[in-house]
């Protein structure tokens, strides 16, 4: 699994202050920490960037490139900031992200072609979020066909199905199930295509201490269904260990749960039980509640 480190994100107060005050140290420390932890890309989520757009983006990319050799994921909806970022990258960057919305097709996809970089394309269209597997496939096929015509090959495209929080009143579990299925069949309908997800979205709204088990388990489940990459927290050691082969028994246990095996919980450790229970809520087998580990 290709891990795109999510920690340089304007929502974090320290990051937004550092960008505003041009304090490179804070940003560089985050980049270094993620690199050492095993990230494959560093995501730069800069938000809408209303002021000094180009200058700020160039400063940020250069600052990060001084601290790490990893390729960067330029994460903004602002096309001017995007181009400034892509231009400044030394290694082939990831454009994060485009979608099937008209504006994005007009402004973002041409940049991916111009800089022959990789590009994240979400299933979103002008009509909004497609509600089920079929319509997600349908809309991404349209957008990918459009990108192909611009000269962007499938192997440069990372499809994002858009993860939604599992805790969304009654509906969240439907999304986690749909996205597992979507990732599973994606490569069959679009050969050579890659994929990515904003992993932490799944656990948005869940009490902080309960978020890691959801993120970790879902990553393993999606990876089994051939997910190529995830925007995630590389500082979560257990998450990295799971994807880098450090915990094969847990991975095996999650797979068995996905296969519907009736696993006797009494023979398992506390940690193993938690992984089984978490896999069951993510695959929609048991009804989710914030107390899912306790029941």
């Amino acid at each position, binding site marked *: 699994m290709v891990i795109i480190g999510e920690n340089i994100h304007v929502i974090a107060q320290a990051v937004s202050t550092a960008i505003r005050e041009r304090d490179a140290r804070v940003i560089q420390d985050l980049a270094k920490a993620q690199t050492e932890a095993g990230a494959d890309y560093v995501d730069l989520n800069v938000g809408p960037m209303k002021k000094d757009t180009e200058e700020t983006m160039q400063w940020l990319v250069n600052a990060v490139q001084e601290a790490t050799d990893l390729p960067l994921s330029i994460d903004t909806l602002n096309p001017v900031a995007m181009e400034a970022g892509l231009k400044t990258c030394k290694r082939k960057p990831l454009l994060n992200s485009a979608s099937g919305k008209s504006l994005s097709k007009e402004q973002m996809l041409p940049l991916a072609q111009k800089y022959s970089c990789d590009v994240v394309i979400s299933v979103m269209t002008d009509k909004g979020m497609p509600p089920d597997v079929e319509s997600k496939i349908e809309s991404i096929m349209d957008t990918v066909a459009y990108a192909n015509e611009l000269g962007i090959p499938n192997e440069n495209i990372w499809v994002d199905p858009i993860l939604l929080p599992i805790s969304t009143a009654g509906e*969240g579990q439907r999304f986690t199930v749909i996205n597992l299925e979507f990732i599973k069949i994606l490569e069959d309908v679009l050969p050579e295509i890659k994929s990515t997800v904003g992993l932490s979205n799944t656990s948005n709204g869940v009490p902080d201490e309960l978020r890691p088990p959801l993120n970790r388990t879902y990553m393993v489940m999606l990876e089994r269904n051939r997910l190529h990459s995830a925007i995630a927290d590389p500082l979560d050691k257990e998450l990295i260990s799971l994807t880098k082969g450090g915990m094969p028994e847990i991975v095996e246990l999650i797979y068995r749960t996905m296969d519907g095996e009736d696993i006797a919980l009494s023979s398992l450790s506390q940690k193993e039980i938690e992984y089984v229970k978490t896999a069951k809520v993510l695959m929609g087998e048991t*009804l989710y509640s914030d107390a899912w580990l*306790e029941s």
Partner: protein
Amino acid sequence: MEYKAPTEEYTGVVREVTIGKGRKSLKIGGENILPFHFFDKGSNPNPVKFALEVLDMEPQDWPEHLIQPFKNVIADPVKWAKKCEELGADAVFLRLVSTDPAVKDSSADEAAALAKRIAEAIDIPLIIYGSGDDKKDAEVLPKVAEACDGMNLLIGPVQKENYEVVGKALLDHGHNASALSPLDINLLKELNVKLCKFFPAEKIVIDPEAAALGYGMEYSFSLMERVKQIGIITKDNMTMMPLIADLGGECWKTKQAKEDKEQGLLWEGITALSFLLAGANIIVFRHPETSRLMKKITEVK
């Protein structure tokens, strides 16, 4: 070739909850079929029950056509409760609305004394609800539970914010708990999981919030339907509890019900019928005419 209609058989069974004791008792739940699916394998041993609501003070904002059936007794909650019994209610639902800090902020002791007097005066089971103010209920409901020690009443609403204090008092004094969550199946399950750590699952009734027609009824409907499906079809231990639809108050505070009697009866009746179909096990009415009509409908063979 003979045609045989397909039938389903499920593994989940809704827990049967007994409210009250001896001849003053009733049972709800116990079904292993979806609502009114009498063609499937299984049964519902306890047809839906109908409770009438009594307030612990004279109502301030009830329209004349709602007060009318109780005209001579409405200032006295004990007489009012006895009137409900005469009118054929399966249970009395006492709402301690005066304890609400925003209403009269009357004391827990007063409320407890009244609850006990009513419980002793009537020969049908009693359900008691606090005002819904979670902090005040945490004072009031334990006192009520203590005053009615051993009577096995249904008491609520037990909420996320006060389930530890209220739940413990209900347990100590031998009552059932009505667990209320705000229209969300995930929150509802979470509350049951937490409550069940010290409180018996066989003594819990789920109150999913019953919104009135035109005021969010479809949310409550889908939620009740889902609670039943997840309980009966997928056998989720934490949703296999009977449901209470506390809808009278919601219906009679609508503009439509206040305006006109016939409209009000229809408002309450259509809301109740919808929740019957969704799987409610006990329904709380304000107007005895609606209650009587709904009972008649469910008894049609």
